[in-house]
């Protein structure tokens, strides 16, 4: 059981998304043991299993965990009320969840988690425009919230509003300039609405931070295939092509002949 607890701790701290694995661990190991030997960690584990159960649509497991949490923390706890409302969201009872969130907000207007849950409610009911407006008002108050900017970027991409999504991606780069994935996201958004020079520049900066990023390597070749003035790019294209072929050679040598041919066509077209 100890290894299961350690794994759960690792997933919690590093933000992994392996809900089915957590549910498997719960079913095989943890539900059979009494968890009070963990002390305070027991409640964190229960909350984590609850959320994973809702994701995997195992309502019975979720209900068990919720009962245990309610027994301990009574109904005055904000966190447990939020979990309760999440359970209602997952079974589709959006009005009840909305009521719970409104009452919790009346108690404390500045609670960031409740604002975010309300935005999720709108997203679940497919009201993307309203969700975007709410998220914009939230971001005027909490301007450095990385997750919120990421979420706004996704929502704008759902609406195919690439200019505004690019703005959100820029904000994310400002908050975390050394994360190669932020640069790659921005480059991909720029590529999607025809700003090929920008996209190419940011794909290069992605490679600067992480030379193993395949998408960025392909992105450079694709942008130069789409740009009008291509003469200046030929040398760098050759180097990038060599790097891509090298990586395929290391991991998947079977695909090498196909990749070579495709890249040749891409560069010379």
């Amino acid at each position: 059981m100890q290894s299961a607890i350690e794994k759960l701790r690792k997933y919690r701290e590093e933000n992994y998304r392996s809900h089915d694995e957590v549910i498997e661990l719960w079913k095989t190991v943890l539900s059979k043991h009494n968890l009070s030997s963990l002390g305070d960690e027991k409640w964190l584990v229960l909350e984590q299993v609850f959320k994973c159960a809702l994701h995997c649509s195992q309502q019975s497991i979720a209900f068990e965990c919720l009962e245990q949490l309610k027994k301990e923390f009574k109904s005055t706890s904000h966190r447990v009320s939020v979990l309760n409302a999440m359970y209602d969201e997952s079974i589709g009872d959006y009005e009840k969840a909305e009521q719970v969130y409104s009452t919790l907000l009346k108690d404390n207007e500045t609670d960031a988690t409740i604002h975010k849950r309300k935005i999720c409610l709108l997203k679940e009911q497919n009201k993307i425009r309203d969700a975007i407006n709410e998220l914009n008002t939230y971001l005027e108050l909490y301007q450095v919230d990385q997750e919120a900017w990421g979420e706004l970027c996704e929502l704008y991409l759902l609406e195919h509003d690439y200019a505004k999504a690019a703005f959100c991606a820029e904000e994310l780069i400002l908050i975390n300039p050394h994360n190669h994935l932020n640069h790659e996201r921005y480059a991909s958004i720029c590529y999607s609405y025809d700003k090929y020079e920008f996209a190419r520049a940011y794909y290069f900066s992605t490679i600067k931070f992480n030379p193993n990023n395949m998408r960025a390597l392909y992105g450079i070749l694709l942008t130069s295939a789409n740009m009008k003035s291509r003469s200046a790019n030929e040398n760098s294209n050759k180097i990038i092509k060599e790097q891509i072929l090298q990586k395929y050679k290391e991991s998947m040598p079977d695909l090498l002949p196909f990749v070579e041919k495709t890249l040749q066509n891409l560069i010379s077209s």
Partner: protein
Amino acid sequence: MGQKLLLIIGLLALAHAGYSAAQHRVFVRLTEQQFERLPTDIIVQTLIAFLACCIGSVQLFGKFKPILITAEWQNKTWDTIGNRPSFMTFNHRGRKLFH
């Protein structure tokens, strides 16, 4: 365990060196010599004890992180970095996939 031992030995050695230095001063005063400098072995013991304390305490209080600021994100996938747990919604295909 080894680090704790190293730290304890380092601290004891440091305390012992300090005590020896004080004793040496008293000895010099009693025999009415000029106080030139501390004997070399006390100095060497102090330095070694200091080194042991440094290494022991640094190793004891947590793992080192890599110095390159980009090394933190080299091996993480979009799945973990792009996961936004405050914004989790439940009306995705998990409903049908996991039944």
